[in-house]
């Protein structure tokens, strides 16, 4: 499973990616996690299972959601509090739950 985080430049989300990888090792769930700039959305849509948006670009959700639905990719905005506290485990769970809902 591939989780992609997007923010304006892929900088701040890369901090979170680190924590999420640690959490995924603890939970022993096999996931790939990456951070990218939001401009890479179309490209990431092809390979991602879950796409999470940084809350600072949550205004993009409206535009992205239909594309994501069409590509059978789960998409949501990262929980603000979890994002701020760089809570990798919580965001990872958010991603996993999101995927579960779809399948």
């Amino acid at each position, binding site marked *: 499973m591939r989780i992609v985080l997007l*923010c304006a430049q892929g900088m701040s989300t890369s901090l979170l990616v680190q924590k999420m990888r640690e959490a995924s090792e603890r939970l022993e769930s096999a996931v790939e996690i990456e951070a990218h700039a939001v401009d890479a959305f179309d490209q990431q849509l092809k390979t991602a299972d879950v796409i999470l948006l940084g809350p600072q670009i949550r*205004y993009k959700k*409206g535009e992205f959601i239909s594309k994501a639905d069409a590509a059978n990719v789960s998409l949501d905005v990262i929980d*603000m*509090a979890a994002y*701020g*506290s*760089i809570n990798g485990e919580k965001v990872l769970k958010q991603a996993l739950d999101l995927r579960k809902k779809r399948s």
Partner: protein
Amino acid sequence: MNGFNQLMERYFMPVAGKISEQRHLKAVRDGIISAMPLLIIGSVFLIISSPPIESWAEFMEPYAETLNIPVNATFGMLGLVAVFGISYSLAKSYDMDGLSAGVLGLAAFMVATPLTDEGNLPLDLMGAEGLFIAIVLAIFTVEVYRFFESKHIVIKMPSTVPPSVWRAFTALLPGFFIILIVWGVDVILDASFGLSLHDVIGTVLKAPLELIGGSLWGALIAVFLISLLWALGLHGESIVASVLAPIWYSLTEANVAAKQAGEELPHVVGQPLMAIWFAVGGTGMAFALAILFVWRARSKHLKNLGKMSVWSSFFNISEPIMFGAPVVLNPLLFIPFLLVPLVVTIITYTSMSIGLVGKPFVIVPWTTPPPFSGILTTGDWRGGVLMLFNLVVSLLIYYPFFRLYDKKLQKDEKAEESDEEKKAISEDV
């Protein structure tokens, strides 16, 4: 306060989102950003040729002309790179062939550019001087191209011809039309008024925009909007810059040209000021907050957050602070967060315009930490001092608000702890 937040979330956010998503603005921003590596590389050579240390600067003077070659080839090509980049991005956003559009845009730009008396390419019009005409021509080119494509006015090829071949042919008819129009307008302008398209765009678009964008008021409004958007948890820079970035870059390039010519720098406001100076540690001078959290916080939440985020904030990444404290939608931290950048803008603008500190002309990556970014962008050690001074002022403004918020959190934490204790006791029983 909640009512206010809901109001903003409901009406302001969609507007902000729409602006940053507007196709042409987005293409302009992306096109200019594609020149970013060039601008940074050019800046490195610029620092070497005009270093901040005087004795070194004297030593470098005989080599200035040679060092200007890479500066001209990078920084000096901003307009040229932008016209290609913007045409490419805009065409891509329409799902058209970006490469053809980029090439056509480039040709339109060259047609509109008058040669020098010796018949050479005018270097000064290739840089930021030509940035605004680059924007206009790129949009014109792609829109015409798109019109032709949508009306199917293109040369049709049999389906056995490889795509790379017919794609080039589809650009033929619109290409002819674009070149003809730009050339025609240019010839008419020259014959009847002795003007070039560059002159016209410069007077109609560039001069007034720079006048507004380069003033203290312009800077204050931009800074305020960026902070306000971030206070709502939206990426303020990327939204505001989608409109104002061309102005900031062209102001900075004018400073670069002056520096190369050894003249007084004309502008205070520009890309370095907006990207670096008013956002030390992230928007709202967030580094000051990070320091307060580490240094002064008594609540566990802020103390932990400070420890976790102070280093990323040092490199100007402030999201953990913005969403973690949180500053976003937090009535207690909201006010200083809006106030601090305005005060910093006024201090910086004033010190630079009265000559206390050198004006910025160097573009550095936005992750360059303070006070190095201040020294590098201005080529002046006093730039570093001013940046630290700004930081101290920010600390002082934030302090009372931080204190209040910290106390509130501490109280909440205590209440929670005693709740848990009570629970533990009752469970024991």
